[in-house]
């Protein structure tokens, strides 16, 4: 299935893009999408503890299952305010 991946801040800069489409096997989870990101853009360091995720614009944990056309966001540590 194909999902849209959104990248931000240091991830976006490391990848050189803010959006890309990942092709993942059926049954893939949000964590699998993140692993795909890190494999596709080696400059992005995989940091399990400090990275959060959103699925279709709602916070989720890494084990959330993906469906065709989902939007997955990889959220590095936030710093709003």
């Amino acid at each position, binding site marked *: 299935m194909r999902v849209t991946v959104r990248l931000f*801040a240091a991830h976006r800069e490391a990848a050189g893009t803010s959006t890309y489409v990942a092709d993942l096997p059926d049954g893939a989870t949000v964590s699998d999408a993140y692993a795909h990101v890190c494999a596709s853009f080696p400059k992005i360091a995989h940091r399990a503890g400090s990275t959060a995720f959103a699925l279709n*614009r709602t916070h989720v944990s890494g084990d959330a299952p993906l469906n065709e056309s989902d939007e997955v966001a990889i959220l590095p540590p*936030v*710093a*709003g305010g």
Partner: protein
Amino acid sequence: MTQHFVLTSQPLDERAVAALLDRDGAGAVVTFVGHVRAHSRGRDVTKLEYEAYPEMVEGVFKQIADEIHARGGVIDVAIHHRVGTLEVGEVSVVVAVSAAHRSPAFDACRYAIDRLKQIAPIWKKEHSPDGAVWVEDRP
């Protein structure tokens, strides 16, 4: 600005945000305004760059307001955040809360900005004479 939860590249106006609040029955309005500081964690700051996940931010602000309403005692909450490049002294965020009494107004305003810093999908790049870094794990 007519919405309670806004992400904008335009300068923020704290009074306009507070003016959005429903004040019927409000004895207290508490407003928090965040400004860009010239110094941060031992570095000189020349400007800040805020980046957000815009399609998600307003929903998170709304979620924070819902959490506040679930705790009770508050009439209305408005949260506005700036994105883009900000100079020193500019306003990055305004949180305004109305309540019948001052104690829940203070508690809710503080909760909102604490929570925003925890969960809002917003990132900040600090520019200094030494270079630029994305800020992480800011308290």
